[in-house]
């Protein structure tokens, strides 16, 4: 059995690395994207303040009404105060305001926008009722800004894995079916299980190798932070890749034409591309969008990878994401294996 899996594995790998155009695309595109974003978002291009708010709407209306009605400021509800504080440290929020009791706010003393946002808050004048306690209480934090490129990198790695896995398995197996490669293999002693295993292993190997090259390339170009456990990072990307490969196999199980496969794969990837928080944070979007986002595997991959790289998490902190992605991968793989037809 293993020598048959190995034979197909090797053949599929050859196909990948000898296709130089495809190979260049797989590795250069994500690097170019990251460099592009680093260039575009180099300065403080956004002219809007982003302020996190802890506490419910009724309290806010009575206490800080005029401040919360300021235009050109985006107010983002924050559920977890400590996560909110971390964002202030990373300059992802310019200010964090806690309105659950006597108003408290956090501001980063290293942030110019934080300074301005603080002036806005104190000048808004709606805290007069709190005059006895002398206005909102200030909590200073410090921390270097998290560049957009640093924030987006874990997402772009995940996105690249998604594309490479879905098309590299889904589209390719459908092409094999259409041009008769599968038919030829069906006539040999190769079993569907052996064939599918070889596809999964080959793509996993290729995707992780390509990600490593992108990672090293981006590190060299951008010097992004990697604060957490490398083992956890490898595990989460492996689980994510397995999940995407299984999804690709499920798409490829029956389809006969590449055009249809292309359409189905696009249908799968676009929602993930937009709603998984690859490009922008899902904080502050509608509850419906957030619910959809939570249902997408890419969201958990991106979240987990960011927790590790930006927030310094280890396996203990991201095991829910790893477990979820692995479980999903195994489930999808079982379905794909059941659905699979050579022709």
């Amino acid at each position: 059995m293993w020598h048959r899996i190995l034979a197909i594995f090797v053949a599929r790998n050859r196909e990948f690395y000898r296709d130089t155009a495809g190979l260049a695309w797989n590795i250069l595109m994500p690097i170019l994207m990251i460099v592009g974003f680093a260039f575009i978002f180099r300065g403080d291009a956004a002219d809007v303040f982003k302020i996190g708010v802890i506490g419910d709407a009724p309290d806010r209306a009575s206490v800080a009404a005029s401040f919360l009605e300021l235009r050109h400021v985006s107010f983002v509800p924050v559920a977890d105060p400590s996560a909110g504080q971390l964002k202030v440290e990373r300059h992802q929020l310019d200010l964090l305001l806690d309105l659950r009791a006597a108003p408290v706010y956090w501001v980063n003393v290293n942030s110019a926008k934080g300074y301005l946002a603080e002036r806005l808050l104190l000048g808004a004048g709606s805290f007069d009722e709190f005059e006895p306690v002398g206005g909102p209480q200030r909590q200073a934090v410090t921390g270097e800004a998290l560049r957009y490129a640093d924030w987006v990198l874990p997402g772009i790695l995940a996105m690249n894995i998604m594309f490479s896995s879905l098309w590299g398995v889904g589209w390719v197996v459908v092409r094999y079916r259409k041009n008769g490669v599968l038919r030829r293999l069906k006539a040999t002693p190769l079993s569907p299980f052996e064939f599918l295993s070889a596809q999964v292993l080959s793509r996993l190997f290729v995707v992780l190798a390509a990600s490593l090259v992108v990672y090293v390339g981006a590190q060299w170009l951008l010097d992004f932070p990697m604060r957490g456990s490398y083992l956890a990072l490898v595990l989460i990307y492996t689980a994510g890749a397995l999940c995407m490969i299984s999804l690709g196999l499920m798409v490829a199980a029956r389809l006969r034409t590449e055009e249809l496969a292309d359409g189905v794969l696009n249908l799968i990837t676009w929602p993930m591309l937009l709603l998984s928080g690859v490009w922008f944070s899902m904080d502050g979007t509608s509850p419906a969008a957030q619910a959809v986002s939570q249902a997408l595997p890419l969201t958990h991959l991106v979240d987990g990878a960011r927790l590790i790289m930006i927030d310094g998490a280890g396996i203990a902190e991201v095991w829910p994401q790893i477990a979820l992605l692995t479980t999903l991968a195994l489930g999808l793989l079982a379905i794909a294996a059941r659905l699979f037809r050579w022709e």
Partner: protein
Amino acid sequence: MDTLIEARDLIRLYPGVRAVDGVSFSVRRGQCFGLLGPNGAGKTTTLEMLEGIQSPTSGSILYQGRPLDRDYRQAIGIQFQATALQDFQTVRESLAMFASLYRRTADRDELIQMCNLAELLDRDTRRLSGGQRQRLLLAIALVNDPALVFLDEPTTGLDPQSRRNFWGLIETVRRRGKTILLTTHYMEEAQRLCDEIAIVDHGQIIAQGAPLELVRQHFPAAVIRLPAAAWPTATPLPDRAEARDGAIELFVDEVAPLLEHLERIGANLNELKVQTPNLEDLFLKLTGHTLRG
């Protein structure tokens, strides 16, 4: 007789079509058996059921007296009509990949030499000519040293030169004791390669036997053709003759006595033609349409 594989009452239905409609035959060990018929006659479907690629709607297939099992795939080799090979692989790598899928393999060097692939070993399989590609596909079909080889229209699309070369190759394979089951719509191919043929039309076998015997069963030894104007008007046509398209055709078992008779009655023999009926004529006679139609 030593039957290697046998088909019994094979029926294969597709929506609205009876692609194969009750086909039975058996192939002896060491024989080259041909399924001859026009496109869409059900040859490929029949072959694929015997290969174990498709299952029959009803009927059974016995290999060495037993139903097909998992090990059957180890014992057979197949050359499909249309097959793509995995991209970005050389001839050598393709052969090695297929060889590693089997328990038992043929001697690789001998196979390469036999199929005349030695000079193509490092070529990308996408850059092979039609004839070279067919030779590689045949080598892949033989890579597990199979007892039974299926060839589905192996020379369709080849130029006459490559076709003849390929016929020579199939004859070599036969000499090595392989049993061959092939489909074709070239009667010349069937006549040259096959010990036995089954003529298939509309999913049924309409005639079966050794090619020459089949022709002999249905036709006299020769057809003599004269322009109508060459026939003396006063003389009536003999019994076994037909006037058709401005010509007269006379069917005879012995040519010499007829020629004497023609001379006696004063027929003009300048444009006389003697034809030996072949499979194509047989097919036309049996089905009313031509083989490639």
